[in-house]
């Protein structure tokens, strides 16, 4: 039976493009229209075959896998629940319910990408806007430490660089575009102005921009490798634009100074509002990492790195963040939901993850899945499971199930584990 589903959402990146059309023959996806090459993959490479759960590599019935997972968690003194960013908010809510129930630490991939962005927001606030405002109004764009040309392929045409909107009918021609980064990138080649800053000097450059906004004169001619004259030119454009938007990425959050970089940028943006309307949008990566922040915030008050060990939520990045919990050997069991810390974590953390019992929920193969004690092969949200995800600008978007495979969702598995540990 062939089906055509329209207005499908791609969950690959934080753009959550929801204008795709997917054609399928039974459970086989044949064609995906409008998705970029990254987005194509999540549909075209999807293996829809139903699979059984595994306990220590052995195929078992679902009941047995759930019982085994519950046994691991019941025996654990300090369980860790991690991942969430490729899951739907419905499942993220269940993950928090499980953490609450068993007194676990819960953390999302936020803590290894935009965690510092969250801390900066908590320190100084964040003047922001939805992506439609960028498309419709922005005549000045500043991309700082991010490269959407490689990471968010439809960001430029849909929302920013070339997008046409109400006040920007000519798209690219109606905008001035800056890229600030430590090396040239695909994005910098498409910009009008590229400011190449020395590695580790973002904070100094940002502080200098704040100084110039206040009309003060720096005592040097070059900051972070950038001539002050060029910074002055940028400040003039910032102060006189109609609607300016800065996008920032891991070039700021993962450079030394981390949240201080981001807080400096957010403060600069706030201060610019004295002269011109200015907003900032963090370039969130994974499809629903923003949703993980949202769900954790509404259920616990805090966006990531939350511990229920004492019965109530406590927030302590650096302590309850997954990397730190593992590297300190503070977790004695882990539930990994739709992410692969086995492949991406620092060695000490990844090594501890191999030592402790793990329960993995994933729709495809991964390093952490390959040595899971209990592996639940799940459906993929947005492919064969419906749900909700949050775009990088916090706009919630529905995820469709475009093929029906009968595979079990994260939500259902978490529900059954909650029941079993209760």
């Amino acid at each position, binding site marked *: 039976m062939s089906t055509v589903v329209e207005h499908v959402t791609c969950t690959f990146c934080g753009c959550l493009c929801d204008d795709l059309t997917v054609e399928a023959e039974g459970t086989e996806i044949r064609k995906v229209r409008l998705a970029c090459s990254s987005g194509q993959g999540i549909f075209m490479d999807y293996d829809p075959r139903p699979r059984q759960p595994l306990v220590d590599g052995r195929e078992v019935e679902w009941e047995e896998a759930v019982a085994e997972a519950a046994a691991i968690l019941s025996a654990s003194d300090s369980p860790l629940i991690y991942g969430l960013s490729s899951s739907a908010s419905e499942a993220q809510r269940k993950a928090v319910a499980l953490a609450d129930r068993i007194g676990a630490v819960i953390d999302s991939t936020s803590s290894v990408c935009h965690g510092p962005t969250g801390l900066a927001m908590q320190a100084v606030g964040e003047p*922001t*806007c939805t992506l*439609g405002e960028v498309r419709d109004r922005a005549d000045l764009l500043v991309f700082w430490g991010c490269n959407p040309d490689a990471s968010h392929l439809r960001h430029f045409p849909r929302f920013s660089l070339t997008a046409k909107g109400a006040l920007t009918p000519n798209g690219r021609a109606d905008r001035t575009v800056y890229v600030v980064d430590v090396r040239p990138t695909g994005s910098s080649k498409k910009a009008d102005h590229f400011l190449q800053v020395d590695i580790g000097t973002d904070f100094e450059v940002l502080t200098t921009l704040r100084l110039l906004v206040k009309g003060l004169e720096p005592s040097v001619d070059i900051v972070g490798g950038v001539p002050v004259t060029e910074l002055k030119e940028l400040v003039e454009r910032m102060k006189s634009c*109609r609607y300016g938007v800065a996008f920032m990425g891991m070039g700021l959050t993962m450079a030394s100074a981390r949240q201080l970089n981001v807080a400096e940028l957010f403060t600069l943006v706030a201060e610019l509002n004295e002269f011109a309307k200015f907003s900032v949008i963090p370039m969130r990566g994974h499809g629903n990492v923003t949703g993980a922040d949202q769900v954790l915030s509404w259920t616990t*008050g805090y966006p990531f790195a939350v511990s229920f060990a004492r019965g*109530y939520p406590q927030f302590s990045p650096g302590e309850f963040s997954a990397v730190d919990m593992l590297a300190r050997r503070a977790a004695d069991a882990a539930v990994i939901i739709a992410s692969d810390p086995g492949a991406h974590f620092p060695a000490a953390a990844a090594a501890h993850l191999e030592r402790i019992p793990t329960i993995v929920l994933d729709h495809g193969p991964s390093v952490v899945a390959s040595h899971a004690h209990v592996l639940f092969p799940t459906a993929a949200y947005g492919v064969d499971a419906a749900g909700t995800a949050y775009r990088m600008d916090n706009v919630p978007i529905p995820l*469709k199930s475009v093929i029906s495979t009968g595979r079990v969702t994260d939500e259902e598995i978490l529900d059954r584990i909650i029941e079993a540990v209760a």
Partner: protein
Amino acid sequence: MILGILGGRIYDPRNGKDGEVGDIWVKDGRVVAPEDADREAAQTVDAAGLVVMPGGVDIHAHIVGSEVNSGRKLRPEDHRGHERARSGNLRAGAGGTVPSTYLTGYLYSELGYTTVMQASAAPLVVRHTHEELEDVPNLDKGAFIVMGNNHFVMQCIADKQPEKARDYVAWLLRASRGYAIKIVNPGGVENWKWGKNVAELDDGVIGYGVTPRQIVQTLASIADGLGLPHAVHIHGINLGRHTSARTTVEMIAALDGHRAHLCHLQFLSYGAGRGHVHRSEATAVAAAVNASAGLTVDIGQVIFGDATTMTCDGPLQYGLHRTTGHKWINDDVEGESGGGIVPITYKPSNPINGTMWLTGMELFLLIDDPWRVFLSTDHPNAGPFTSYPQVIRLLMDRDYRREMFDSLHPRARRGALLPELDREYSLGEIAVISRAGPARALGLEHKGHLGVGADGDIAVYEECADKEAMFAHPRYVYKGGELVARDGAVVADVTGRTFSVAPEYDMGIEAELREYFKKAYTVSFDNYSVLAGHGAATEIVACG
């Protein structure tokens, strides 16, 4: 299940009961006549000497959705020290002025409240509102949909097409599963996207040429025309400014007899005082309210202590950020709204805060008809809802009120009318302003009273001299006939309902909207409506 609450002093203003001793019977979640309750099978509670009221109804609070959740995320310092551990089936949570969702439900239960309206939601992000509403237990709820800066509405006004605006509004209420039309700083939020605001009812909205007056009049008349259960819910222009009382009175005149609810009126009742301190213009504003029978208001009483201001009023929030220097969130929402968040602490020693406090008190005491003035703190803007018992005491106890007045900064006290206002609210009047009145204004027929057919939402209090203590520790609270709190502590987690409206409209508009969305939004028309996807289970309240 059958429940009997026997021999209590019943305060049920809608049914004319002002402390008369009697029984209330609840069967399958609803109040029934005594003869319809099987007493043998019933669980009974001896309420002799206790005060029995309908569950509280909050007509205006910010408890869920994108702005509230940004406020939660923004303020770890707000939660610490206010956490609650899980216990049994009750979820853990973090409190403070912006509590997590489960705890929000529990805290309301612990005050005897059973219904709360989310005061604002931008339709683009209302899916988020509904997700959170599902995670708020023990309350029935609804969400007001912001439309006062909506591009499509403003274009219809500019094009002189009020029917099209009406069809759009009806479609939007359905698509967002909303309960009422909300207006926030009409035109001012759109102008803020240009770094500007509006100051007068006849100022122009950039790009549309329409005025705040036209927006308010159009939406008020649509609410009436569609027969929405709740009138248009308005946060006017100039909030917090010394011109606000004047423009509030002008706005009331501009409503021209249409039904309307003016929210957190305290923030919009100031005049110019000496120096930089505003003064209360409660007298003028209350007179205008008293003279307009179709109007209801809630106060937004300032509570001394921590608060988190959050509104769709972007320029207001920026102004607060500039005056306080506190951290600031702004969020411009394409095509329809905006908003901001700034933490604040209200202090009696601050002359402006003192004026705000006494303006709220004066409004409460000068508006004659308790059926038209409702208890609110515009949670968490003027203070947290957990302070309602304190406001009740202030209204019922003039000595306590005087004591607090005396603690204000002398510049706030100078020339104030408040000390001359001797009025004290009665228990029956408290039942009106916190239950019967808001329920009636919301058009929720089965809320706010204890007559046959009403929801079994009941709060039982032990009367004592300290009315704050009384209302902070209800003896029993029932939601739909189920005990949810006892002796001021939540004991159960039950699922609440969400109410929405489904007014009729000409479906022909959808084809035009489909085209409009391609240009106006970055989300597909089909994905914008919360009817798509996970959706939101709501109970439809009829228009009429």
